[in-house]
């Protein structure tokens, strides 16, 4: 295709720069081709301003029907690749139709832009923000240039952030009480908790805590769900006995997590689950999945001190309840249900 590119080589260079490019925070971003680039980071309601400079190839002129810059928020589904759904679209006209003979710079500004969704790069869906400069030309097609940027929206720390505490089990086989110190975690947070063994009649080999991401795209009958395990963190080695309590401390920072996204523009949702998995000596898995909400925190808690908190894990009065066995490979996988 090189010759084509050569043939249709744009007769000018377009560059887009942000006005505060030097001071603005840059974050790594993984492009479609797998490369990681650094992109400027914005929040909703920020002013996005900068300059677009058009520089014709020396000796040539650029004839156009007008130049515009657009700020687009797009959602792209992978099963419908190339088809973007713009949920945000703002336009600034930069130039009236005419000719450009030499480098010309156009300032632009989008003030207090509403950017409700965050940049997301998932398994089946992508949400991106981009500045798109278009030099419209009548016959030869428009010249287009894109500049991506990243949006993250920090939320204040939740005022209510209860711990999650639950007694679960399989009747006469395994009763545990687990506790996570919060139900909402920010992305650099630490999950602290405890698992208390109330009854152990199976020979447990080990216990892991998994972070699973459930990304659902589409809606209705077309809903497509993709689940990935992002972290597999061993909590316990060996078989505990009744009365043991095992501490949980999982640092979230090493994992590539994103905030929880709920029904983004009716297109997709991203949810996170903590999955507690116990494996017995015959490699049967017993698990209990628990939804947790992740978010970016306005003021991430300082990680200055060691995390050494132990939530108290008191024994509750034990009520016998029904046993729930999940469908599917019941022999191999068994969900632990609340009692």
């Amino acid at each position, binding site marked *: 295709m090189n010759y084509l590119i050569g043939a249709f080589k744009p007769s000018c260079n377009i560059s887009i720069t942000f006005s505060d490019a030097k001071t603005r925070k840059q974050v790594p971003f993984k492009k479609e081709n797998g490369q990681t680039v650094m992109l400027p980071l914005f929040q909703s309601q920020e002013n996005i301003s900068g300059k677009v400079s058009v520089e014709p190839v020396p000796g040539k002129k650029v004839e156009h029907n007008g130049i515009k810059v657009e700020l687009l928020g797009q959602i792209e589904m992978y099963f419908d690749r190339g088809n973007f759904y713009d949920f945000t679209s703002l336009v600034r006209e930069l130039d009236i139709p005419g000719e450009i003979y030499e480098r010309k710079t156009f300032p632009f500004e989008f003030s207090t832009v509403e950017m409700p969704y965050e940049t997301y790069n998932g398994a089946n869906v992508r949400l991106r923000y981009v500045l798109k400069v278009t030099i419209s030309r009548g016959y030869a097609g428009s010249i287009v240039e894109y500049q991506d940027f990243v949006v993250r929206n920090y939320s204040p720390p939740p005022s209510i952030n209860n711990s999650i505490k639950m007694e679960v089990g399989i009747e006469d086989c395994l009763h545990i009480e687990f506790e996570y110190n919060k139900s909402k975690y920010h992305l650099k947070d630490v999950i602290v908790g405890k698992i208390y063994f109330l009854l152990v009649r199976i020979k447990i080999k080990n216990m892991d805590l998994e972070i699973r991401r459930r990304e659902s795209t589409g809606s209705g009958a077309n809903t497509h769900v993709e689940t990935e395990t992002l972290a597999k963190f061993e909590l*316990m*080695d060996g078989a*505990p006995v009744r009365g043991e309590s095992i501490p949980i401390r999982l*640092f979230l920072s090493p994992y590539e997590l994103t905030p929880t996204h709920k029904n983004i523009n009716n297109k997709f949702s991203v949810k996170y689950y903590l999955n507690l998995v116990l494996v017995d000596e015959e490699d049967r898995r017993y698990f209990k999945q628990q939804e947790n909400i992740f978010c970016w925190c306005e003021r991430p808690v300082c990680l200055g*001190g*060691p995390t*050494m908190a132990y939530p108290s894990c008191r024994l509750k009065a034990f009520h016998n309840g029904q046993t729930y066995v999940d469908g599917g490979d019941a022999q191999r996988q068994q969900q632990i249900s609340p009692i």
Partner: protein
Amino acid sequence: MIADRAEDEEKWLAAGMTGLQQNAFHMHRALDSNNLRDALKYSAQMLSELRTSKLSPHKYYVLYMRAFDELRKLEMFFKEEARRGCSVIDLYELVQHAGNILPRLYLLCTVGSVYIKSKEAPAKDVLKDLVEMCRGIQHPVRGLFLRSYLSQVSRDKLPDIGSDYEGDGDTVVDAVDFVLQNFTEMNKLWVRMQHQGPAREKEKREKERSELRDLVGKNLHVLSQIEGVDLEMYKETVLPRVLEQVVNCKDEIAQFYLMECIIQVFPDEYHLQTLDVLLGACPQLQPSVDIKTVLSQLMERLSNYAASSAEVLPEFLQVEAFSKLSNAIGKVIEAQVDMPTIGVVTLYSSLLKFTLHVHPDRLDYADQVLGACVKKLSGKGKIEDNKATKQIVALLSAPLEKYNDIVTALKLSNYPRVMEYLDNETNKVMATVIIQSILKNKTQISTAEKMEALFELIKGLIKDLDGIPDDELDEDDFKEEQNSVARLIQMLSNDDPEEMFKIICTVRKHVLTGGPKRLLFTVPPLVFSSLKLVRQLQGQEENPFGDDLSTTPKKIFQLLNQTIEALSSIPVPDLALRLYLQCAEAANDCELEPVAYEFFTQAYILYEEEISDSKAQVTAIHLIIGTLQRMHVFGVENKDTLTHKATGYSAKLLKKPDQCRAVYACGHLFWVDDQENMKDGDRVLICLKRALRIANAAQQMSNAARGSTGSVTLFVEILNKYLYFFEKGNPQITVASIQSLIELITNEMQSESTTPDPATDAFFASTLRYIEFQKQKGGAVGEKYEPIKA
């Protein structure tokens, strides 16, 4: 199959080692290039080798030690990093990103150690965090090793009194809490091993557990090393919490080992002050725990402590150690109904040793212990268990060893009662021990009552118990035993003759019950002991108070007479004869003519009636002659009777040479050097001449029977007698008679019919040489000899 297993295990270990070393190599490279990320990655991979379940604790230890060495290097690196400005807190977080828990926790402990050292956080917080996080390892072997690693790296970083890490809210209480918690968790893991895996591998598991026990015990050692653990804290915190764990774990192996550990690692002084707490735990242990060993060790330690210095003794009194121990033992025995006899006895034996060390003056305590022991043994009959009887011997020996004095032991009224539970065999052993003790310490048994008590103790040796003679007795053993009894009797002595007489009577009473086999050994020493008393009295004025009841030699002799008579039942006439003669001599020295005569009579009767063997007769007659010769107490009449009899016996011996020798020996009866009235030269000559005649007859008999006259030895012997009496100045022995005897011998020797005998030749030659020698001496003797021509 076992060999296969071992082989497989070797392979797994080798594989683990290889994996470990490879990753260690990469880790080193990362460390050298200061690449923290890689260092963490490879160290985690290296530590993953420790996740294996295939190795026995023994082999796992090898792997662990290797990893341990590597972790030291990593720790150095972390220290360097911290010095270079890398935040330890960040490191502390960073290592926790590892996905596998075992490597994660090893790394966490390693960084934790650096963290405490950096003092960026209070030591107690870090320690608390580490010990809590380690709960994630529930696998016994891996958990024990991990926690032992934690214990190892934290040892020098405990906020002990005087340590760098004390202060700012970090106190020794935190250090103790930390160690106790780690100990508790380790013990739980260790106990849990017992209940995991199939029942048929129980033995193997127990072996593995014993290999791991020191890892658990180490914690107690660490506790004992903490300076800040003073008595107060030990009493209030350490001991109750350790004991709580020991009691609650309900595991036989752990309880036994940990109790032993507690006793060994903590100071004696602490044990003494917390005795009730420690002892209170004992009855709560599992019934199968070998509690006797535990308590014995405790008592042994306390005994040694008491022995170490007299200054500590008041402490024992203050805490009433004895009664506490005594109670505790009672309770333990009650609680453990099935405790075998050996256990009971061992406990009491230890307690006895303890009280002997701590309260040497409280004999009542010792007696109390023995009494309690008797109570427990009662109803069980004789003890059959070999080990148990050994323990009883130890129990009974303890007071002897302590006091070195049987007299003290005799005051213990329960002592013989305990002995009753021994079987006959052991009873004897014990009796021998008692006697040995007396002999060794030269103990004086000063009163008849004590003697009575002593003989009660050693009656196993004195008579056949239960009246049944033991047929399977080893002859040598029996002799050994009886010899020791004999030695005991020999040792008897008391300066007060009255008491001594009573003692002798007591001994006699017991000895005479011994039966024929024993009398042989016991009567002679008894006789000699009595004679010793006689000699003692002999020096004193007789009957100073004129009191009829007081001891006189006469009384003793009466007793002796009866005593020796007892021998007639055996019968050992030659022994009895000797003893009679001994007594006669003693009576002679006491100037008791009738008594001496009586003894002689008895001896003669024995000779006539009992001694029939010709060899024995020869010996006896010479003894009689020898004794009789020394008697000076006899009047003429008695003397004549006895002498006449002796001469008569001599002439009636069977063999001519014996006759001859006895007869010339009789010559001495008429010639006592230092008594002027006892020099009857005529009768001496008669004897010698008669001897010559017998010698002659002997020669002729020999000639007739064998064709040769035999040797002239008898003549040479008679010549020597002639020379003796000649020299002593017997006027009947003339030069002529000597001369003719010499000629006779010379002729006989040259005679063809005489059997040449070099010994006789030499004897004769030296006799002649003697004559020559006397001649050359000159003076009166020389003159006397001068006429004799050799």
